[in-house]
Every structure is written in C-alpha cells, then in structure tokens.
C-alpha cells in the first residue's frame, strides 16, 4: 500500500484552498482527488457574478474564482492532482481506496481532509406526491444542464423552494427565454440571500409565493402542472386556497445535504439531522487526523468563507502531520 502524507478528497474551492494552505504550512506531499474531469467543483456551473468580494476584494464569477485557485494548484509541484478519481473506501486508520479510469488504487494517508461538498435535497425528501414525469430537476442539476452542457430543460418552469440556487436559476432560465411562472416557498421569508431575491426575481417580475407549498406534481410523460396550496403560520393548508400552475418543468431548490458518507464509513460520528460531523470545533471530525472542510462540514452561504475555513483545515492537517501523537493522545 502506497503512503502519502495528506490526501484531500474533493477538488472544489474547499479542497483546493486546503491543499494550498497545507503546502504553505510545510506539507511536502499532497494528493488531491477529484471525481470530475476538472477542478473547481460546483463553482464551474455558477457562471453568475458575486464571488470573491471578501477573499479577493473584487467581484468574480464562479469559474473565475475557481480558476485562480486551480492555477495555483497547477503550479505547485507538491500537489498531485488526480482527476476522475472516486474514493470508494475510507477507514479510521486513514486507508483509502479510489477508482479511476484504468485503476483501483489503495493508499495509506498520514492525514485526510474531506472536502466532498453537498448534494441537493430532492423532491422525494419533502415529499411531494403526484406522478413522476420527466421535467423535475434538482435546481443544481438544471444549472449544470444549462451552463455546462447548453441544454434548455423546458419551456415553462415552477421553482419549489427559494434557496439561492433556485433563485439564480429563475433568472438564468428567464434569460434563456423560458417562462418562469413562480417560486413557491413554504416559509415566511426567502431562504436565499436578499440580493438574489431582488436581482433574480423582482428584476424579472417573477412572483414569489411565500407560505405556499406545492402539494402535487401532475403529468404523465412530462410535467403538465403543479398544484399549489397556501399554508398558515403553523404550516397547515388553508382550505379552499389551492390553485394550479401549468408548466413543463419543476426545479427543486429545498436545501443541501453535506456529503459525509465516507466519514460515516470510516466510523466517525455523524449528526444525522444535518449529516454533518459531530466534533468539538471547526473542520474537525471525531477521528483525529481526518478533517472535513467546506460544505461537507456545514452548509456555507458564501464561497469566500469556505476558502477561509478550508485554509485553516489545511493548516490543521499540517499541524497534525507534525505531531500526530498530540491529537491521538
């Protein structure tokens, strides 16, 4: 089994910041594993501006923000990047297996940083009843379809939930000529940033229905309509308030879930309500030497804060590698 000093799982903003910070703190050998074919993670599909105001003191798009870190990573000879590399196993002793085209690799790491990000909550988790036609997408998937692949998912959309990705996608689809009929939010206020409500909905005259929920999705082969009902402050349906909206697309933007299945596999403690590590402090897990940073440790609203905390994770891993016995007791 090959030995590596620091293995970082995930080449998005968290993983790249952690890798660079670990190098700056003196780690000689960093292996950065990324499952996709490029670094940058979800930032690559976030082509809107609004990134970097804190970290770079200027406004960048997602790909620009990711690109700055990717360039630094590429220059650093102490960081080996392995793309299309998917970790299938992690033990508490920091043994890792990963698959990549052509190989199953096994590694013993001195320290591991999990920068695996989030997945989206789905329609099934709410759950919204009704039929299961084509045209229902998690908002992030729709964003990837439009911005990375150039695929327009439909003609008329309703967005469930007012998370930031949903708001950004409302504007994005409107710009592509789709009719965005409504954003439906069960809570009293939007879940997203105020600037996104203003710039993505109000500027495009897209109605936001607060204290409403989608009670059913209809359509045989493709989405045909959704049923919407008003709820009171106790989230109970208001009788007689139901109405329907015709659409062929439903985007679901109802929150993110940190991806900590590897950490769970390693036997670390997980809080299953939030799917985050149970630990005494930022970036820590219940296993000494295994760290979690970025959206895997908690859901952030700004990538700038992901960078800040993930740089700390890189430093923490460097300190652990210096004196592992201090953490292992």
């Amino acid at each position, binding site marked *: 089994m090959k030995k590596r000093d620091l293995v970082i799982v995930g080449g998005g903003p968290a993983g790249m910041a952690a890798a660079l910070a670990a190098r700056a703190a003196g780690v000689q050998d960093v292996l950065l594993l990324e499952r996709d074919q490029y670094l940058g993670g979800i930032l690559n599909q976030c082509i809107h501006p609004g990134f970097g105001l804190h970290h770079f003191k200027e406004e960048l798009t997602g790909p620009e923000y990711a690109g700055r870190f990717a360039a630094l990573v590429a220059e650093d000879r102490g960081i080996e990047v392995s793309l299309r590399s998917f970790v299938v196993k992690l033990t508490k002793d920091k043994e890792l297996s990963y698959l990549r085209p052509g190989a199953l690799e096994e590694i013993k790491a001195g320290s591991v940083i999990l920068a695996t990000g989030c997945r989206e909550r789905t329609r099934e988790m709410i759950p919204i009843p009704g039929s299961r036609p084509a045209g229902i997408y998690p908002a992030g998937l729709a964003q990837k379809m439009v911005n990375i692949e150039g695929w327009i998912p439909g003609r008329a959309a309703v967005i469930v939930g007012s998370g930031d990705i949903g708001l950004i996608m409302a504007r994005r689809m409107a710009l592509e000529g789709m009719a965005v009929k409504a954003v439906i939010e069960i809570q009293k206020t939007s879940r997203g940033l105020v600037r996104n409500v203003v710039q993505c909905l109000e500027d495009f005259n897209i109605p936001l229905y607060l204290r409403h929920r989608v009670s059913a999705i209809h359509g045989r*082969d493709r989405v045909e309509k959704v049923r919407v009902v008003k709820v009171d402050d106790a989230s109970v349906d208001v009788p007689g308030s139901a109405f329907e909206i015709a659409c062929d697309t439903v985007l679901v933007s109802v929150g993110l879930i940190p991806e900590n299945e590897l950490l769970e596999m390693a036997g670390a403690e997980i809080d299953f309500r939030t799917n985050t590590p149970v630990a005494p402090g930022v970036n820590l897990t219940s296993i000494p030497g295994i760290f979690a940073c970025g959206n895997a440790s908690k859901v952030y609203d700004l990538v700038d804060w992901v960078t800040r905390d993930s740089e700390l994770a890189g430093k923490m891993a460097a300190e652990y590698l210096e004196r592992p016995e201090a953490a292992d007791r």
Partner: protein
Amino acid sequence: MTADVIIIGAGVTGAAIARELSRYKLKILILEKEAEAAFGVSKSNSGIIHAGTQNPPSSLKGWLCVEGNRLIREEIAADLGLDFAQCGQLIAVFDLADLPELEIIKKEGEELGVRGLELVDRAWLDLNEPNISPGVKAALRVPSAGIISPYRFVYALVENAVKNGAELKTERKVTGIRPQKGGGFEVVAGGEVFRARFLVNAAGLYADEISAMAGAPTFKITPRKGEEYLLDKKREHLSNHILFPLPSATSKGVLVIKTADGNPMIGPTAHDVEDKADLSTTEEGLEEVLAGARRLIPSVSKSDIIAYFSGLRPVAGKDFIIRHEDSAPGLVNAAGIQSPGLTSAPAIAVMVAGILKEHGLGLEPKEEFRRLRPRPVHLFQVPPEETRRLIAKNPAYGDIVCRCELVSAQEIRDALKRGARTLDGVKFRTRAQSGRCHGGFCTTRVIKIMQEELGLPATAVSKRGRGSELIKDERK
C-alpha cells in the same frame, strides 16, 4: 411480417412466455407499446417471490405460484444470472386468538405443496427479527419466499428469449387486430401490420381491450393501485424477512419488504381506480403506508423515505385468466395477472405453451436452446480483486458515473448494449440515478453516454420513451 406466435406485452408474463416458446422451432414476435420491456405493470412490482401461501388450494394462482417459485429458485435465477435472495417471509399476528387463521394458511399452503411452513413464537421473533413490534405475538414462517429485482427479471427473460431467436419490437402499441378467414390474425401496431397464427395476450392492464379487439370481449380489467415507498439503504437491516401482517377484514395489509438492491420498501396500498394511466402517489397513501409499516416495525420513519411510486395491478376477478378463447380461435389470454404474477410467470409460460400445443401449435425443440445468460457486472457487488480484474480488462470500469450507487461508465454502456433505450431503462438495469441524490450528479453524464452509444441528439433522450424527453433545446 409473419410469425408463428405474436405475444402482446413485454412485461414479466409476456417475457416468460417468449423465453419458454423460444425453446422450440418457432418464429416469435413480442410487441410492446412502451419504449422498453417491463415498463408497464412489471416495473412497479414489489419483487416478492411468493411461496404460494394465501391462495385457495383450488385456484390457478395457487399451484402456478408454487411451481413458479420452484422454477425460479431451482433453475431460472441461476440460469439467467439473477440475484434471488431467499430471505423467507413472516405472516405476523398481533393477537394469539388469530393463531387458528395462521393454522389455516399453513394447512392450505401445505396442500398446495409449500414446504417448510412453521409457526414461530415471540421468543423466536426476538432472536430473528429484533426490530419487529412488540405487538407482534407470533408468526407463520414461510422459508421458500424471497426477493428478486422485478425489472431485471423481465430484462433477463427478454434478453434470453431474443438470444434464442425471438424478436422484440418496442413502441408498437396494438391498435387493431383482424382475425383472418383461414385462421390466424393480422395485428396492426405502430403503423405496421404483423401476421401470426397464434396470438398470446399478455397486455397487462390493457388485456381486456386486446382480447375484445381479437373478438373475445370476455372479461374486464380493473386497475388496483398500490403505492410503495422505498427507504434508504442505510436501513437495509430493518427486517430479515419479508413481513406481512395477517390480512384483516378492513385492510389487506402493508408489508415491509426487502428488495434485491438492499433498500427496504414499505407498502403497498390497494385501492381500485378508474384510470389505467394513473400512477400518482398521494399524501393519504403515504400516511396509510407509514401507519401500516409502523405496526410491524415501529422505528420506520418518514425521513427514511428516498423514493416512492405507485403501480396498478391488473385485476380481473379473483383468479388469473389463462385460457384459449374459443370465440377467437388462436387467441390465448394470460390476463388478470396480479399478485402473485411475478412468481407465477415461469409456470404460466409453461401452461400457455401447453394450451398453444393443444390448439395445434407444433412444439418441436431446437437442437440447441441457450438457456444461460451471462450475469451483468455490478461493481457494487464485487470484491476488490474482481474490480481490479474488470478494470484491467476495460479501464472504463474504473470511471465512476453514479457516485451514490457506484456505477461505472462501462456498466452504463453494457446496459445500453443489452437494450436500454431510456434513462429509466439505464436506471433499472444499473441503479445509476437510484440512490440518495436521485441523479443530481450523474444525469448529465448518463445522457452523454446515451448520446454516444445510441447516436441520439440530447433532445431525443427521454426518461421513459416518447413524450418524456428531458431537454427541449440545445443552445448552439
């Protein structure tokens, strides 16, 4: 095009009949209205391979189920490379006063030839089903019951039938059947005309319409809806057996089912509906299923649910209808195949072949019937040494597409080579998109592999066939 036998419907019944008939020197054509096999009633099946209990000893269902169970356990699962898990079944009672009911089920089962039935007490349950409700006082243990993946069962049957010379034509909805003067039928489907001397009607929910079209309006199919809810794989060990409550006068009972892929499933409901296309789930259905499942396993939680769907059982009275229709000579109906239809299918197939023979179809065995089907590769099932061997043979087995269920690019290509044409077809065969993220991460990649392999524009890739395309436009 002229065949000896046209089978209408590529669900489990039609597929099993096609495979059975492909043993003989016959030209067999299967017409399916959907984009792929198994996309009708079969895809929503719970996957239980029943033992044969709880059917009247005199019924067709009873003996066909017992025989189908035996065929699947002893031959078909192994021959077709299918994972059949003989986990057994428990029929639970909540009141010891109901024990005589279990005794009757046991006695009737034994009359049908079901073996190994035994009553188990609370101490046995404590030892073998630690999560079962304290309210369960005793159970009937049915060891020959098990689970299988319903759609993979159908795909395997179809693939093997095709390997032995049968032909499958999809997106061929039958719109007309014309009995011919000298015998036989002309079948109009998807704008084409097909001819055959014999017609086997395995059209599921639409079997009544097909039979009427052929000249035998002898029964009516009523859809009975069942909602099912799949739980996270993390709850795989919720139960060790398939759990049934003893049916009561008011409720048929909600089950806790193990599935072939490890996700427990709870359901189904049973409500008659009008619309043969109504596959919606409801808030009431969810509540009913949760309450029913919690009677058996109190720790089942709404937050464990990762997917849900409903299916329609094609009900035509209490028993199956498997017969030659004398008012339409040459037509054999295999209709009203509700539960335990998946289990019974191989036995129904043998029975249908017999009926066809009685009515003049020559069954001359082929010199070589290729009964084996190679097992498809699933990385999530194989040990690291095997993964290494696969990757050495083909590097694309190391290229992971679906991260939740560990599915590689090559497995997706394999599925397409075996006949998948839609996103759901890929999902059913490989599990890609069926995990926690529901395809959030892998859908675009799966679509791109489908484009490459099938030579389709992105706008032509669909979820389950025409009308369910996923992308409206491609930006230039």
